């Protein structure tokens, strides 16, 4: 085995603990800091689940989907209906019963979001491949249509999405109260990241995606129909957004039809920080945004949205293409 070290760009990863450390003195107490940090990581994981799809779609297909938010909202609302049907399971105190209700809800949400994603790609995105301006306009239009259709089906007002009984409340770690649900969110996030990393790193399809992000033409010249891959990635990306929507909804315990548009902005900030096309970058961006939002939410509530923007500006001044820019031909 050669002893040559493969140099690896570790600086962006270091940003996450760095931010956490900076926030420690500002949080007042260690237990507060711990609660906030776990909350931030959990939020970050959920955002990552949603953003990962979008960054791959952009990286691979050069498609800017300003309407990604519609899948988030759709997933959340579908889950609310499914969970509504299973109220006796969610009302139970037993964890396994709760999980047996939540996981199918997530699955259905992902299926529906994926199916709508299929239609979205076919009818809204495909006709404008390669034309960025039109893509921005049309996908934005698609989101508006989606949001209105959600209002038609589920009504224009708030829809509650209460957490199942056993997932409520917190675990006590010394002085720190760590919400049970947030732990679940981190677990799910890690699982999703693991699956994505495995698929991208160890399977041939993952190889195709990574190569396609860099040089679509060459992949075609090697004999692969990348068009079909596009659709697949779009559908998976939409399904992931649906999953993220469910988790976000359970986070807020309350759904509004505009939630897609609201989360959209956060997602964009995340993938810009991460670098369009980079999954690892999306994870770092998401964790940073999650932590930032929670820290400022405690320290200086009015500045929360601006804090994330300031973070993005700071990152772009350091690396204008994001932390892990994808090398494009």
């Amino acid at each position, binding site marked *: 085995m050669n002893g*040559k070290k*493969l140099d690896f760009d570790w600086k962006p990863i270091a940003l996450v603990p760095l931010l956490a450390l900076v926030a420690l003195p500002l949080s007042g107490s260690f237990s507060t800091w711990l609660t906030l940090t776990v909350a931030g990581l959990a939020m970050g994981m959920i955002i990552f689940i949603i953003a990962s799809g979008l960054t791959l779609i952009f990286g691979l297909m050069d498609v800017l989907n300003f309407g990604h938010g519609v899948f988030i909202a759709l997933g959340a609302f579908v889950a609310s209906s499914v969970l509504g049907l299973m109220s006796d399971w969610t009302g139970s105190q037993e964890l396994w019963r709760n999980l047996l209700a939540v996981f199918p809800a997530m699955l259905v949400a992902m299926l529906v979001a994926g199916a709508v994603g299929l239609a979205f790609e076919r009818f809204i995105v495909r006709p404008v491949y390669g034309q960025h301006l039109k893509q921005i306009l049309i996908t934005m239009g698609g989101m508006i249509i989606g949001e209105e259709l959600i209002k038609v089906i589920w009504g224009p007002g708030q829809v509650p999405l209460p957490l199942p009984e056993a997932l409520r409340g917190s675990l006590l770690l010394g002085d720190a109260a760590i919400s049970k649900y947030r732990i679940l969110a981190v677990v799910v996030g890690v699982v999703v990241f693991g699956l994505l990393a495995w698929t991208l790193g160890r399977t*041939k399809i993952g*190889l*195709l995606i*990574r*190569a396609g992000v*860099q*040089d679509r*033409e*060459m*992949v*075609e*010249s*090697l*004999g*692969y*129909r*990348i068009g079909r891959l596009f659709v697949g990635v779009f559908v998976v990306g939409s399904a992931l957004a649906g999953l993220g929507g469910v988790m976000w909804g359970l986070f807020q315990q309350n759904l509004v039809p505009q939630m897609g548009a609201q989360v959209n902005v956060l997602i964009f900030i995340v993938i810009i920080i991460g670098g369009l096309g980079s999954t690892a970058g999306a994870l770092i961006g998401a964790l940073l945004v999650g932590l930032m939002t929670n820290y400022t939410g405690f320290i200086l509530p009015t500045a929360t949205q601006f804090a994330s923007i300031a973070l993005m500006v700071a990152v772009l001044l350091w690396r204008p293409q994001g932390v892990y820019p*994808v*090398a494009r*031909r």
Partner: protein
Amino acid sequence: MSDALLSLEGVHTHIGAYHILHGVDLAVPRGQLTMLLGRNGAGKTTTLRTIMGLWHASKGSVRFGAHDLTAMHTPRIAELGIAYVPENMGIFSDLTVKENMLLAARAAKSAEAMDEARLEWIFRLFPAVQKFWNHPAGKLSGGQKQMLAVSRAIVEPRELLIVDEPSKGLAPAIINNMIEAFGELKRSGVTILLVEQNIFFAQRLGDSVAVMDNGRVVHSGSMADFSADEALQQSLLGLAL
């Protein structure tokens, strides 16, 4: 005179508003190495890209064996057995050398499934490929990348190899390596269409030659005849081989 594996007839190609190819007629004989020569801007790269379907001919036809490639999509053209090494090499720099090769080996589902014997042969031709097997391809030097690009094209047997300036920017020692490799490939029966500006390549490897100028093939014939005719070389290329 062997039959033509690949033939272009009256091919015109437009890129946007620019009319680049003005009726290209080209025949690539089976089992031979055909050199495509010409000054910069003559349309050589455009011709190769048109064959691969990356740009579509607006007029004329491209035939490969019994297939009509003119309006076909690139992946299908590649599937028919044509391997393309573009001018910029098309290396995926974020992927390792192994992953680059695996991608090119369409039939292999994983790295272990790649043809061992074939890989041994490639490693013998281009030792650098084996040396940097697990390294990101972006870390390779220009010459090594070029070798990787050619290795990719031959990791599985193909009927036709289309190569665009493989020796560009390479050191002379590496160019010799390249020439030997192509020589072996030729002997193994692969048909090759090579665009090159390097003199030695042309002389040592070429069986047939086609010279392009202003989007047309202005001369074609055997390399032997072309090499003997200095006046023709001067007028077409501005230099003697």
